[in-house]
């Protein structure tokens, strides 16, 4: 059941993100990319398998059964991915503002269609 909910959430985010990414306004593109990156972050997380109530850190010393613990690696990966996509979105926002200032329009091609 959990799997289904998470899968639907990822699919929903990806769908909305893709649709927004293909829109002609730069701000919609930025929001689309953000949604896509949320979807991808969730996807990475889920690739470590969904476990509830399992700790990711094994206590020191021998005898711990790895099967009783959650996979810590995707959690570390997702952290890296979040930081990177966050920084890139900020950069894209700056470029968006510069493009708006220089071209006078928020269309992704820098001019309104039919102009």
């Amino acid at each position, binding site marked *: 059941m959990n799997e289904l909910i998470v899968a639907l959430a990822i699919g929903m985010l990806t769908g909305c993100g893709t649709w927004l*990414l293909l829109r002609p306004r730069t701000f919609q593109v930025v929001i689309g990319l953000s949604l896509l990156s949320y979807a991808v972050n969730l996807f*990475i997380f889920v690739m470590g398998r969904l476990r509830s109530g399992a700790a990711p850190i094994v206590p020191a010393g021998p005898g711990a059964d790895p099967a009783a613990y959650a996979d810590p690696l*995707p959690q570390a990966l997702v952290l890296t991915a979040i930081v*990177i996509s966050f920084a890139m979105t900020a*950069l894209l926002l700056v470029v968006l503002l510069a*493009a708006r200032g220089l071209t006078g329009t928020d269309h992704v091609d820098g001019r309104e269609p039919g102009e």
Partner: protein
Amino acid sequence: MSVLREHLVVVPVVLPLATGALMLLFEERRHALKGAISVVSTLLLIAAAAALVRVVDAPATAVYRIGDWPAPFAIVLVADRLSALLVLLASVLGFAALLFSLARWHRAAPRFHALVQILLMGVNGAFLTGDLFNLFVFFEVLLAASYGLALHGAGAARVRTSLHYITVNLTASLIFLIGVSLLYGVTGTLNMADLGARINAVPEADRGLVQAGAAVLGIAFLVKAAMWPLGFWLPGVYSAASAPAAALFAILTKVGVYAVLRVWLLLFGGDEPAPAFGGWLLYGGCLTLLFGSVGMLASQDLQRIAAYSLVVSAGTLLAAVGVADAAVTAAALYYLVASTLGVGAFFLLGELIERARNPAADMLALTAEAFGIEEEAQPEEEVGVAIPATIALLGFVFACSALVIAGLPPLPGFIAKFALFAGLLAATPVPDSAWLLIALITLSGIAAVVALGRAGVRAFWMAPEGAVPRVRLIEFSAVGLLVLVCLTLTVAAGPVMRYVRDAAAALHDPRGYAREVLSVTP
């Protein structure tokens, strides 16, 4: 010395990182100091890369365990012949672009030197890393720096194309992440050597997931390598970028090609027959070749011609990689080095030549050509007018880089294509796809000759429309350096060919790679 030797593999990553960080400490106006530090650091980088080439050609694949953890559990940097060669190529190209920028471009906007160094760090790291997720991180590092460099010098055209560039590459990065995490979810490892070893042990039910993961990853790489339907962003961005930035970008598509080559051969190059991916690469590469050639013929602007010639070289490389034969891969590696240097020189040269002309003249010339309007006959009094020395020198260098790009003798472009054809024809019987590839490569060579010849005639042999371009010695020496390296590649074709052949043989033996990476003990 032994400490340096021990840590040699990590030097190409750490040195530019440290230099880039150092740049931030100095005031923006101290251009001379920053330029000097940058040049010294890049020279050291070239020395380190050359030393690395010597070490790995010993032959000993150098494996560097970051944090001294054993191989499959933590990140390793792996320098084999291919990685070392590409690191050297990136450093030489970086040095030339840097030298060129010292004349005026590095003053055009802040943080130029820091961005160049970080770009070099990302490129070198991507070539050296042996870990799939670390490859993603280095991709992001080089992309972040390249966004800054694409915007360098500002202007509406650069901002507009950079917006497209950033969006496309961010999307590609997200696709990259999906591929990586799919592979991790199925195999439980991110180390490339370990992945290659485990992929055969994947149960039949999960085979489809592995192949889907690899294909998704492939899409991300191919966006970066600019394969045909995925590479429409390239010509606009590269022709709008400032000359030194565009010359540096010549190596970026090669990073994509490298990633395809390494990951595909490691994952599926073993005894299990590769899935249809090779065919996709081969035919996709052919289409890219065709697209690039048509684009070259249709372009007037020199920077645009250079950008499309980059597409052509990416297509040639991808198609050659798709053949999956060691001899063809060896020739492709030689071609990679030659074409990167040639196109890099051409980007720099294009700016020098265009400097003297006004953009409106191009448009007029094009219209005149299209409508068959002849210029009025000039009175013949110009007989014996001396060609200005600048123009003569520029013309010579232009001819050299055009020969490399078009693949005409005696420069390395020809040797590369000759070796490529020899490798393709060595198979018995020669498959139809090989004939197709040979035909397309020949055709693209003809297209390049036509496009470059036309541009060259217009730039050098027509009555000068403006003043003779003012070229600083340092700019010329940057272009000259690249052409000189190309000439050296021709003279030293024997040893270089031997080297790339060994590199390709090692690439097609993923078992050996895995053994060397995984067997290193503390």
